[in-house]
């Protein structure tokens, strides 16, 4: 009878854990002709009343579309915002007319730039994930699973 060596088992476990973590931290979803990368809701602490969502989206459809709004169970007050820096001054604006997504183009929601602002969170950010609906002009509603992550975790992970 042949025995598998213990060091080989440990090696396989480490590899599995590494890939499992990579899968959750750099998630990529393909849905209705869109590729959504790394959707995250980032919060200060689990009792936060306010949080921001970030992701990258690629329109792989053969038509232009527009992201009109975002909604979800986490809050009734979710808005698309943009932050701009002018001479070191941070200014944040609500986007009312949506985000154009030309065919075969991509768009990034990220810290200090375009982001999804989630306000008036009643029960905090207690779950490990929350679904947000991205409402498009042509593709209508697309439900995306967002991983919840604290600013501490995000800074430590470096992405």
């Amino acid at each position, binding site marked *: 009878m042949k025995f598998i060596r213990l060091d080989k088992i440990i090696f396989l476990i480490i590899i599995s854990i590494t890939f499992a973590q990579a899968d959750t931290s750099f998630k990529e979803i393909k849905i209705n002709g869109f590729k959504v990368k790394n959707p995250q809701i980032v919060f200060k602490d689990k009792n936060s009343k*306010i949080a921001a969502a970030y992701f990258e989206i690629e329109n792989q459809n053969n038509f232009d579309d527009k992201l009109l709004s975002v909604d979800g169970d986490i809050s009734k007050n979710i808005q698309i915002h943009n932050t701009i*820096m002018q001479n070191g001054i941070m200014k944040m604006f609500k986007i009312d007319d949506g985000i154009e997504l030309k065919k075969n183009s991509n768009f990034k929601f990220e810290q200090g730039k375009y982001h999804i602002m989630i*306000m008036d969170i009643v029960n905090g950010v207690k779950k490990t994930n929350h679904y947000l609906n991205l409402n498009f002009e042509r593709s209508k509603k697309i439900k995306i699973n967002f991983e919840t992550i604290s600013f501490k975790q995000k800074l430590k992970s470096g992405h």
Partner: protein
Amino acid sequence: MRVFKNFLFLITLFFLIGFFCVLITKKILYTDNNIAFNKIDLKKIELVNYNGNKIKAIDLFKKPAIFYFGFTSCPDICPLTLTKIYLSLEELEKSEIIDIYFISLDPERDTPDILKNYLATFNDKVIGVTGNNKNIKGLTKSMKIKFNKRITENTYTIDHTSASLLVFNNKIFGRILFDDDLENSKKKISEFLNFIY
């Protein structure tokens, strides 16, 4: 043998002189880069800390400190910056020798209780400070911070300087910018503390 010893001595001397020159130049450059506060009497500016205690602005400058000006309704830049400063100090293991202050630019909404709750994540290391509009304006003017309350649909937001200030002896010695990553922030704080201590 003697020639070799003299050669070794000269090389060591040359290396030491070079080393100290670099050190002194760095220190002089760092000193020259500081910016004095605008001349406003900080003893006359009354503020309230997150425990509800009245304090004078002058009390905030007893130790080297990092100041960040923001508001608790800010979704990403304010919590991200505060977390970055907190983590930098934690990783540098220097949190005992420097204070961190979060000065609210939104005294209408940010009461001491709200500040206390908001900053609980940082284990009392980040001290929340608020005050009335007049005194907050006095402090920001002194420290060259710009902010503006801007009315939006049915609420308001605050446009404000996004950098954190490294402060000692009523002078600004450096700025941690919003887009500085954790490593850059640690480097800036280390340079600041190396200069002070």
